[in-house]
């Protein structure tokens, strides 16, 4: 058993990574006293009422409403992102055109641009156009391959597909778009899954942009609604209710990751880059 020390080390590491989350779930069933007196995560008793309360929130809407709001952002964002990033990456990976190197440099440079630099002018722009407090500012930019990282990942994948495939398709009479649709897209499916998963996860985590663009509580995505509920619940009492709220906020991301995990991890490792 030469590998035992390695297993022990990895198990200890994994415990550090995962225990806080287990503890959080356990704590949602605990009384205030129990939360602060025990490091063990399993609660004395399990009462699901806390989740019913948390689900209702202190706002006029329940968590389901806010989750639907988030989906209203995620679904168009995913469709826009995948379509535009695939087209742009295809252009970069398979064609020559004027100023290609300049545009590629700008693609990479764009990833380094701090959100805080652009968010204020964009706020003013959307407010002039009358689209504040709608989901337009949160979705429309993704029609234009706004996530440079996605284009970059896809380019790596396109490069992994032999160019003979394209040529064979062309001999059979396929144009550029049909080659993409029927030959290349099936080859890069893991990358597309990765992009969809990343879009989901990043939208769930997105805080600054919705905080600035969305004003009415009715339209809040999950992240803002959770923040509001937590702030107005007050952390001095009913600690487990706040914790239950945050567990609810954790579930969608972890579920999506768990479902897509196999394809997703192969996608990011093969692509060589992640967020």
């Amino acid at each position: 058993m030469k590998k035992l020390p390695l297993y022990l080390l990895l198990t200890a590491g994994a415990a550090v990574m995962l225990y806080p989350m287990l503890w959080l779930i356990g704590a949602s069933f605990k009384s205030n006293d129990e939360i602060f007196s025990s490091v063990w995560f399993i609660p004395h008793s399990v009462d699901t009422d806390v989740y019913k309360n948390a689900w209702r929130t202190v706002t006029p809407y329940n968590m389901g409403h806010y989750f639907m709001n988030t989906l209203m952002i995620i679904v168009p964002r995913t469709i826009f992102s995948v379509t535009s990033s695939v087209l742009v990456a295809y252009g970069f990976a398979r064609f020559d055109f004027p100023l290609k190197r300049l545009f590629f440099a700008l693609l990479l440079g764009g990833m380094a641009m701090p959100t805080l630099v652009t968010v204020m002018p964009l706020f003013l722009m959307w407010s002039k156009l009358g689209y504040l407090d709608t989901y337009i500012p949160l979705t429309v930019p993704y029609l234009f391959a706004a996530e440079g990282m996605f284009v970059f990942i896809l380019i790596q994948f396109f490069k992994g597909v032999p160019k003979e495939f394209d040529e064979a398709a062309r001999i059979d009479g396929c144009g550029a778009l049909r080659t993409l649709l029927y030959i290349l897209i099936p080859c890069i499916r893991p990358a597309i899954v990765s992009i969809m998963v990343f879009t989901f996860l990043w939208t769930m985590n997105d805080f600054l942009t919705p905080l600035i663009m969305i004003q009415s509580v009715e339209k809040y995505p999950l992240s803002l609604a959770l923040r509001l509920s937590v702030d107005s619940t007050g952390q001095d009492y009913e600690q487990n209710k706040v914790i239950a709220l945050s567990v609810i906020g954790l579930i969608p991301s972890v579920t999506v990751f768990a479902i897509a995990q196999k394809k997703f991890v192969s996608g990011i490792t093969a692509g060589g880059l992640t967020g």
Partner: protein
Amino acid sequence: MKKRTYCNPVGVSRFTGLLLISPFILGLAAFLVYPFVCSFLLGLTDYDGIRPPEFSGLENYRYMLKDRTFRKALGVTVKYALILVPLKLTVSLLTAMLLNAEIKGIGIFRTAFYIPSILGSNLAVVIMWQYLFTSKGLVNQLLSMAGAPPVSWYGDPDKAVYMIVLLRLWEFGSTMIIFLTALRDVPKELYDAAKVDGCGPVRGFFAITLPQLKSVIFINLVLQTIAAFQEFNAPYMITGGGPMKSTYTLGMLIYDEMFRYNEQGYANALSWVMFMVISAAVAVMYAVSALMRRDEE
């Protein structure tokens, strides 16, 4: 993409590629170049968000030089980046090396180490962190079990920043995966040859692993530095910038000037300075890595 690796096939116009990337070009103009230029121009004005902006030249920048809060925030941000980035890169690389082993069940371990990084600034994580570090929270309970005195994470200006550092360190999975991918591409023969030459694991690490991973280390260094300088979510939600502004990052200062005090001209000047600081940091790293490469040749 240094050389033309692929010529357009016969019958394909050189504008097909341009047409395909046209969404990117439009988006670049509308959502990057336009706000970038706007931000610069607004930085030269006095603007409260209501009355039209009034040109004030370099007044905002002159004020910045005297602004103590700015100096404090810049210091906090630089300190935070200097602590976090080397730590995160080291932990990521060492863990990636462990996870590169071909043993049973390694996939489960890879997933376990990766999961925290998908949560980013998800509110669940933020709440969790707040509870872990309260005076009687899990961390202090563990410390007392180990016989160490409890730490006042929220009250001690020297300690609060480590809560944020530890959060981002806990989320090292995405950096680690990049290293892991690169490690898989390092030819195994190199290590075998080194072993034959009597080279131990430590020397193997410095003589083979590090040089082979140079470009990935650089990418991770740049990505993490950019992210660290922009840190806003975690201090905003966990500490609110306190105690005594010890976690008040540049990002928080810009946000406050923008949306709390409506000093939008000043806020834009600040965000430009943030951009310049990040660019300067990246430029320095780029120059150093270029120098190191030249030395080797």
